[in-house]
């Protein structure tokens, strides 16, 4: 599951980092929920900028010796809370939205600690991971924003949110049971 934290044989460190969020489904689910939240708002640039700034803080924080590893259930718990917000269609203020995106960025960055052992390779992996996070969240949010906002579509987003709630609940319970 966490193979993406190291380099992939045969491809460069930066490209391994770019692929890291794709190879880590728990991160991908959080990114998808963030995109669902952001894409349904008319302006989603600012929360995503918050996310990317704090993701870089989290990614760089992994290189400091005093930051412990993230417990494996934390990304799942974050995804659960965020997807519940999608299901109940909670009206979020600008500041709370920014706070949520910042928190998500910090957690995802912090949970993407590379383990190649070489400082320069780690830095390349981190840079690639940051690029991967940018690409995925922006692309998915843009897809969501492009879809016409008809009631049936909004309902579809809520159904998708409820599926992600279910996935995260099962994921957390399976991880706690291991």
């Amino acid at each position: 599951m966490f193979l993406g934290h190291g380099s992939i044989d045969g491809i460069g460190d930066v490209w391994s980092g770019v692929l890291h969020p794709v190879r880590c489904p728990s991160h991908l689910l959080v990114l998808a929920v963030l995109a669902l939240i952001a894409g349904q708002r008319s302006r989603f640039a600012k929360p995503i900028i918050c996310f990317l700034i704090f993701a870089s803080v989290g990614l760089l924080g992994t290189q400091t010796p005093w930051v412990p590893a993230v417990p494996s259930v934390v990304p799942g718990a974050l995804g659960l809370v965020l997807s519940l917000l999608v299901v109940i269609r909670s009206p979020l203020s600008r500041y709370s939205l920014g706070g949520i995106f910042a928190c998500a960025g910090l957690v995802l960055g912090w949970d993407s600690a590379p383990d190649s052992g070489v400082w320069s390779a780690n830095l390349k992996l981190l840079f690639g991971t940051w690029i991967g996070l940018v690409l995925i969240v922006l692309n998915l949010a843009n897809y969501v924003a492009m879809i016409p906002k008809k009631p049936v579509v909004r309902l579809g987003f809520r159904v998708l949110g409820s599926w992600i709630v279910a996935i995260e609940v099962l994921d957390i319970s399976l991880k706690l049971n291991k």
Partner: protein
Amino acid sequence: MQRLFGFGDPCRFARRSAAFRGSSRLLVGLASVLYFAGATYVCAHTGSDGGGGFLRGFSHPWLGGDHVVAMLAVGLWGAILGRSAACVLPLLFPTVMAFGGALGVRGVEIPSVEIGIALSGIILGGMVLFSCKVPLRLAGSMVSVFAVFHGHAHGRELPASASPVTYSAGFVFATGLLHLFGIVTGELSRWPWGAALVRGCGGLIAATGLGYLFRVI
């Protein structure tokens, strides 16, 4: 043919094209989500636990006939109850089922789970057979109670070696697709022959539940 496809009216054709573009974007988005959800299964070449991936979770709900008929019945009943129920029930069922699944995974015992599953088939099938219309809250409560039983049974069967996220994703997608299949079939009830077909499906589901009840008692 012209009227059917809207070729005669440029405005209508443009509207249809726009709707098609919207649908195709939605499909592309859905395909992307499914692709990414299956990403780690594809990465099984790296030596990870490929046995517990997306496809394994996806295939799980289809293997138990008692579960399949109940999930189809939820979709069918939702379609009979109306548009809002067709949307709310499939939203409710996977979520509550996941909580039941979490109880099963954690080893929390619920009494008479198998009987509850059999009753879900009988009652939901009966609702479809007799086209019973009840308030949405009552329908939601009934479906939620049954979802706990189904989720608990699934939770007990979840393999310990499963890759948690991908397995869960496959499992939930399959459940959602079963509901969707039920809803689409239930929409046929707008036509007289379709209504008969849907009621027939309800009868079959109730009979399956009854057979399962005799087996577990």
